């Protein structure tokens, strides 16, 4: 066999191999084709034998022809094997089918209560402003809840508080705190100024639970005491806080003169309605403003009550209700929602 004859035998073998591979339906057929076209009696093998009889000049060309042939057949077989394996796997997998939309084993996470989420968010904002988080008892004495806050007995301001008293001590001496402000007093009683704290927590009013009243709710209160804190510091801090809270630099704040026994001057804080941008909507009762809470400069009588010199120290405080904030943000219209613990509500946030 000369070079031309060998080449032609290889070409014929390749054609035959292509036909055999393409019609193969089983992996075994491919094994057979491999033996037939690449094995000991294959055209490649015959061509290798023939090369031995060729001249030194012709051998490299013949060797290359054999190599090309082997590569082509191998590729044909591999390609077909891939196809047949896929078919086989698909056939077997049908019996292993799983429906992933059935869900999982049911191991799901729960949820934090919405009030906890908001409380953490507020704590974190104040921590970012350099504040610490202060706490105090929920059952308080008259001194911390009223008297030290410049609310003496029979003071008209007490008519604003519907207090739950408990049977401890003298009559109307021990109560469930009506606001988080007693934490201010406790913090100042136990710490030297400067003070920068926030006090979140549960507070109580003597109300029966219904759509608009709840005996338990949550407040957060901010207290800062330093040598030269001013009302401008109060307003600036609130504005920084509000921008962060609503994640919105265009939220405006509004301060109006108000009265709280423990601050002087006092102001009511409102923010421009984040839903209608101040144009008026249901959430803001068509006023464009949402009243958020109260604020003011710490009353000198409060400083005297805790033993601070009001000539040396000045401070500010502000606070508001967490339920109210949540109701505004999410359009929740009944305050009792927060203590009913309906799992559909709990799962929503």
């Amino acid at each position: 066999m000369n070079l031309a004859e060998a080449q032609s035998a290889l070409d014929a073998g390749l054609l035959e191999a292509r036909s055999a591979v393409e019609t193969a339906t089983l992996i075994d057929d491919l094994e057979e084709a491999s033996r037939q076209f690449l094995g000991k009696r294959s055209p490649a093998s015959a061509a290798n034998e023939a090369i031995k009889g060729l001249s030194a000049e012709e051998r490299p060309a013949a060797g290359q022809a054999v190599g090309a042939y082997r590569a082509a057949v191998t590729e044909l077989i591999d390609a077909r094997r891939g196809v047949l394996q896929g078919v086989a796997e698909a056939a077997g997998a049908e019996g292993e089918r799983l429906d992933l939309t059935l869900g999982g084993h049911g191991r799901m996470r729960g949820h934090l209560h919405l009030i906890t989420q908001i409380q953490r968010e507020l704590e974190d904002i104040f921590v970012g402003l350099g504040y610490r988080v202060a706490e105090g008892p929920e059952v308080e004495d008259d001194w911390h809840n009223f008297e030290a806050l410049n609310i003496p007995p029979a003071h008209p301001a007490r008519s604003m508080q519907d207090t739950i008293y408990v049977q401890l001590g003298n009559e109307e001496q021990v109560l469930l705190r009506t606001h988080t402000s007693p934490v201010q007093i406790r913090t100042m009683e136990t710490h030297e100024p400067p003070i920068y704290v926030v006090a979140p927590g549960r507070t109580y009013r003597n109300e029966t639970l219904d759509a608009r009243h709840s005996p338990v709710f949550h407040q957060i209160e901010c207290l800062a005491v330093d040598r030269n804190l001013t009302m401008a510091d109060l307003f600036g801090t609130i504005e920084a806080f509000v921008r962060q809270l609503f994640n919105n630099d265009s939220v405006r704040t509004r301060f109006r003169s108000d009265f709280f026994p423990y601050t002087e001057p006092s102001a009511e804080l409102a923010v421009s309605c984040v839903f209608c941008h101040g144009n008026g909507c249901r959430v803001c009762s068509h006023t464009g403003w949402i009243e958020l809470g109260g604020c003011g400069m710490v009353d000198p009588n409060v400083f005297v009550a805790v033993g601070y010199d009001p000539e040396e120290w000045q401070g500010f405080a502000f606070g508001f209700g967490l339920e109210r904030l949540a109701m505004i943000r999410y359009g929740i219209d009944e305050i009792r929602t927060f203590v009913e613990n309906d799992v559909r509500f709990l799962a929503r946030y």
Partner: protein
Amino acid sequence: MRAPLSWIREFTPVDAPVDEIVGALNQLGLEVEGVEEPGREIAGVVVADVLQVLPHPNADKLSLVDINDGTRETRVVCGAPNVVAGMHVPFAPAGATLPGGFTLERRKIRGETSDGMLCSAKELGLGEDHSGILGLDASTVPGTDVREVLGLDDVVFDIAVTPNRPDAMCIVGVARELAAHFGVPLSVPGAEPARDAAYASDISVTIESPDRCPRYLGWSARVAMGPSPAWMQQRLVKAGMRPISNVVDVTNYVLLERNQPLHAFDLGRLPGRGVIVRLAKAKESITTLDGVARSLTNEDLLICDAKSKPQAIAGIMGGSDSEVDETTTEILLEAAYFERMGIARSSKRLKLRSEASARFERGIDPDAVASHAARAMALLVEVAGAGVDSTPIDEHVAPFTRPHISLRTSKVNRLLGTELTDTDVLAALSPLGIDVEGSGDAIVATPPSFRPDLEREVDLVEEVARRVGFASIGRTVPKPQDQIGGLTGAQQERRVAADALVGAGFFEAVTLPLVGPSDLERFGAPTDRVIAVANPLRAEDSALRTQILPGLLRAVATNQARGLADVSLFEIGRVFLAAKKGLLPDEKLHLAGVVAGSIHRSPIEGDRPADVYDAVDAVRVLLDALEIADHALVPGSPPGMHPTRAAMVRVGGTEVGSVGQMSARVCESLGVTGSTVAFELDLGALLDAPRRDRAFVTPSPYPPATIDLAFVVAVVVPAASIESTLRAASGEMLEDVHCFDEFTSDALGDGRRSLAFRLRYRAADRTLKDAEVAALRQVGIDAVIKTHGAELRA
């Protein structure tokens, strides 16, 4: 309070647009809660003169009324019985509109053309009277807009006055604030009623409790009872008061206008023709104007007649015996100043609040008692034909002194963060009636007698702030210098605990800490330490919780009642126990959880009822999240739980809570159905407990040797104690041990069970030899047999 603009304008020429006035009041701290314009919906209704009334030819109950509306004569059909010739009436011609947006048309009624209608009070939005056409004063001019005649062309501000501002609870007070704000004058004319020379006073005033009643002015007058004139009635109605009679209306009018509560006694029914102001005796009683008999204490102040019989609760409400009525001919007018706290205490104790008590307890103007009484007498002359006694009896112990307050401009600026000048400060304060002298840091301010809230420098700083407006104060953000913001360790760990339970599938609940005592009893709360609410609104809210679980189970019941049977809840909150010493209770921070109903796994695996191991898992997750070093579950019978399916949680040898299946009886009593498991832990104690050592230990790279051991032991022997025994016996080579199989059978015998443990040994520095493993195995077997009376299963 409700303040009509027309009344305000009687004292100051404020002509700003309504929205500017509202803005000013709000800025000044007189919050406007509502603005009403009573005549806003009325258009085209005019005064008409009735010329003649003829019967309607086709209807018995209708008549034809010819009228002159000032420009023309026309005819309307009318059904009201009270229309007569000569009467002045409100006429709504075709094209006019009435409240409710109703526009009139010319139409035929039973064949006769009606050119509009005559209006009743109700049709004009003036109350409920629909019995006849509203008769207007004969002096009204036909053609005049009825809004003008009826005072409906007005704006009424509904103002919420803060408790520190008694002066602003009256029309003059509001006018004063507006005059200052808009820079217009305020003019409050004095009044000096004409005296009746033919009428001489013989009344007496005796103050027996001058500390409670520093000033009492009694003034007598002869009166002709009757209705008050329309203008007075209109103002009272707009201000929210019901007209009663000319005398009573005058007292209310002066109250609203000048903030001076007044009371008119029928002098004919006041035995002894005089008053004694004294404290009540114990068990004394009086029937007040509202018809309620009130029992009094010796802290209540009374106005008695000269025979010492109670006739009024001072400053709060008059008595029914000496109330003026249509038969009254002679009155004793009381204008007094009562001590504030006394009124506040009586009002609170009697649960009786009135317009008068609200003002007295906040503090009225002690210096103006006489001039306000004079204003009332002048009005009585005008509207009740009063013959006024020449001399009022004005008893007061000592003149009232106005405080002189030192004020520093530097303090104003230091507190507000402003750069105001002396001139700015003076300009802010003077228009409020505050006398200001001096300059710089030596200003002396003397507030007027109607501002009891102004006592200290800071009170004046607030006045300055109100007047200059908060908008003119800057905005700066202070940064704490010596502190870094952050949570305490305990605060962070509470978050960790909550997050761990959330990760384990629990929903955080917030329940009421007020519970019924019976709920607590079911949970075996220590009854001697339960704190009772002194003023509970409901029995269910009459005690403070000593445990969270009762409330949490009620939350489960709420969900189940809504068809939500399967819930996993937890709560972190305080519980309250009466302190063994000290006033305030021990407040402990607890964490409780409950799993109720089924655990959903279907259809991959079947649902299964919650079981006690779900609660155990939660406790373990929590203990792990908090890295508690030394904890154990020990068998126990916590109250409220299943007697043999519960355990105490012990940390470092101290019990910190319990876990188990809730008793069926407790669940039923709380309305909870289905399998319910729960836990409650003293979170505070957990946070105080020692934590796992966090020092790094290199994981051994050598292969482990794993063996299984099965023992037969009494069922009351906890698996955990066998694990402990194995751990203690095997030493540090035992890397892990856990129970992987439990079973009971007849062959094992009653009260016995088989427990199988898998033990994994590993050395830190070498591969363990077979002989070493065999020795460790034997040590473990021996220890378990000896300690627990166990047998090794072959």
